[in-house]
């Protein structure tokens, strides 16, 4: 399984390769006819690379409570890998994946990450979803010098040399969303509501700082345990405080209860009084909630399935062809799709599968075929990306109503936190 660790790569050739491959056009063009460099050159750290294959890991929960959310990411990652293989693979090698189940259990994630890195010697891991699973895996990845592509929008406050964060960190999602609500909708008062764990709490803190800096007011902040299904009391509190905007980061099954009860309590979200701005409801979640219950909800995300561009149309078509016509694609699914592509680009730029070289090569990597448009890896390992505001329709899709002009710079350690 392991390839010999001796024999140094010949430098000039690698640089030539790297130069060639950095050309964006080559991204889509590297075909099998492209002569594959010998394994001894592209793998000096004992990874599972042979003359014609390279092994990567997929590590998500496919059982347990988180399977609901993580299945989409698995599907997107497999799709990307298959597409890359169809185009000739990476450095002339077909990608093979080892899939492990994190089982919605954080130590299992750590254990499986260890297994992937130590037994399977994978060149990269695409995986994790919740912050807790990432935190559990992080020490393992750093200890054994692996590379993790993490797809979820998350709370920030982290920047590991061994992780590429393909989702948004908190400020990318929140700041643009609040600015939009203030500017376009004249919002003055906000009610912050979330599930009780680190991402909503951190997100709401960032939101509160941003809101108060503008001289506006937060009239309530509230958290419910994960899986909570009774929101009548908080709906009454919202009615009492009459905020202009409810800023919601409720996750999982609680969402279904929350929106159904909002609707039942006579709050018509399409009237935008109050306006509901969420950072947690993607198209995936709407399937469970029901389109008619979220009509009029605004979401601040970087990707919506309805994005009108050529890349996205191809992506959506390919995804549906591979996984079925009734599939919907949410923000995280798209971010997961970016992982294998960004890794491929970094490998080709570095001319090597070695993690150290990929890390060095990663900043500045761009992916022009991204369904969300265009992304680029920042020095801090997060992505430059645009933020969009969409309004939910009864058919379960978002209609994009606003898009930031420029790419938002990722800022995992925002002011007031460091």
């Amino acid at each position, binding site marked *: 399984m392991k390839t010999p660790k001796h024999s140094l790569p010949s430098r000039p050739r690698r640089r030539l390769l790297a130069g060639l491959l950095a050309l964006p056009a080559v991204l889509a063009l590297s075909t099998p006819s492209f002569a594959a460099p010998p394994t001894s050159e592209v793998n000096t750290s004992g990874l599972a690379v042979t003359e014609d294959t390279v092994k990567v890991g997929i590590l998500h929960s496919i*059982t347990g409570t988180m399977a609901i959310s993580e299945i989409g990411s698995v599907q997107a990652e497999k799709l990307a890998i298959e597409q890359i293989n169809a185009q000739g693979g990476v450095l002339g090698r077909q990608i093979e994946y080892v*899939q492990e189940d994190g089982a919605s259990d*954080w*130590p299992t994630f750590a254990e499986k990450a260890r297994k992937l890195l130590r037994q399977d010697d994978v060149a990269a891991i695409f995986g994790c979803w*919740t912050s807790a699973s990432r935190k*559990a895996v992080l020490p393992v990845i750093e200890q054994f010098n692996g590379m993790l592509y993490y797809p979820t929008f998350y709370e920030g406050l982290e920047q590991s040399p061994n992780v590429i964060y393909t989702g948004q960190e908190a400020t990318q999602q929140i700041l643009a969303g609040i600015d939009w609500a203030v500017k376009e909708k004249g919002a003055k008062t906000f009610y912050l509501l979330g599930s*009780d*764990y*680190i991402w909503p709490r951190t997100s709401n803190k960032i939101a509160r700082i941003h809101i108060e800096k503008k001289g506006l007011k937060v009239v309530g902040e509230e958290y419910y345990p994960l899986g909570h299904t009774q929101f009548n009391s908080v709906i009454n509190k919202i009615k009492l405080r009459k905020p202009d905007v409810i800023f919601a980061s409720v996750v999982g099954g609680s969402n279904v209860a929350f929106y159904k009860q909002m609707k039942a309590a006579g709050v018509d979200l399409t009237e935008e009084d109050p306006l509901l701005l969420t950072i947690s409801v993607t198209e995936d979640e709407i399937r469970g909630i029901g389109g008619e219950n979220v009509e009029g909800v605004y979401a601040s995300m970087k990707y919506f399935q309805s994005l009108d561009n050529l890349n996205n149309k191809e992506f959506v078509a390919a995804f549906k062809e591979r996984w079925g016509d009734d599939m919907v694609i949410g923000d995280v699914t798209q971010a997961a799709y970016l992982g294998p592509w960004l890794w491929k680009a970094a490998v080709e730029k570095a001319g090597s599968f070695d993690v150290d070289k990929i890390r060095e090569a990663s900043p500045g990597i761009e992916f022009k075929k991204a369904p969300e448009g265009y992304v680029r890896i920042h020095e801090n390992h997060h992505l430059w990306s645009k933020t969009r505001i969409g309004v939910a329709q009864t058919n379960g899709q978002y209609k994009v109503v606003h898009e930031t002009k420029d790419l938002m710079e990722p800022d995992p350690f925002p002011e007031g936190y460091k």
Partner: protein
Amino acid sequence: MKTNSPLQWLTSREGIYYLLLALLLLVVLPLTLDAFRLNMVGKYLTYAFAAIGLVMCWGKAGILSLGQGVFFGLGGYCMAMFLKLEASTPEATSNQSTPGIPDFMDWNQITELPGFWQPFHSFSFTLIAVIAVPVLLAFIIGVAMFKRRVGGVYFAIITQAIAAILTILIIGQQGLTGGVNGITDLQTLMGWNIRTDAAKTTLYFVCVGLLFVSLLVARQVQNAKLGRILVAMRDQETRVRFSGYDVASFKVFVFCLAAGLAGIGGALFTLQVGFMSPSFVGIVPSIEMVVFCALGGRYSLLGGVYGALLVNAAKSGFSESFPELWPYAMGALFIGVVLAFPNGLAGLYERYIMPLEKRLPVIGKYLDKDSPEPQAPPVVSDQLSAEKS
């Protein structure tokens, strides 16, 4: 059990079982497994502590606690707090707005180390707390419940509710406890890097050593008069009470013992895995611990150890090959254990393997010379009628 000297004990049937387990854990596994797998076995063994506690508490004394995860978690959190403080030196956390406090506190705008964290700077305090905190909580719960003769199903459900309460509390008080992520990124113990393979192997042996200490303590309790009273209490509580024994105190004692053992397991878990999170406190891990104990044989101390090892090994193995089938297998295991062999592996062993041993030429005769003490009552105790009597 007339053996007095340790040597005599070791050559008795029971002693040989212990020797075999020691041989397996100290020689066979370390020689056959690589550091990664050995560390996994070490992790499974930490659950064995909780399982031993449950054998004492549930098997021997008939008290089913669905809250062992609480004690496991408390022990683990005590250790994690110490390690986290050690990792959060002012130098290592210099990029925080308040250097010197754990990173998650800084993210939650806490600017001063909370009071209850302070003592965990001291390692000796931590070692005491790992046992004392779970035992104290168990004592409070035990006194409140057993003095009022709450038992059986009610006790199980109340301990389950306590597990739910503690989980919500830990998750809700994110600034003080690390919330749902738990306390992560633990690196060194008194300057000793616990992440290296060598350290993990050392910790494995420490874990095995403590496991045997715990087994022997539990065995001592079981074989003393105290143990007899516990069993009597399980089978006929009223008669024991009428014989003048303070039933509640015995129950409190064995519940505290189980809690202390779970606490030690939790602390070792933190050391070997490198983090602690509320997912070990809740309802699911608590029930799983009961299953380890039930599968191994709820009346047998060694059975508990094997149960923890086997269920976890099966879980890892099965979920690597057939992740989607794992829950079915686990579920079937639960049902199968309860319906088909309620005395677990130990019961199967006594019923099927032991008679075979006697037929073996030399060993059989040797083993036969001290007839085994029956571990389980002939029929599974009728707990319902015991409660109602």
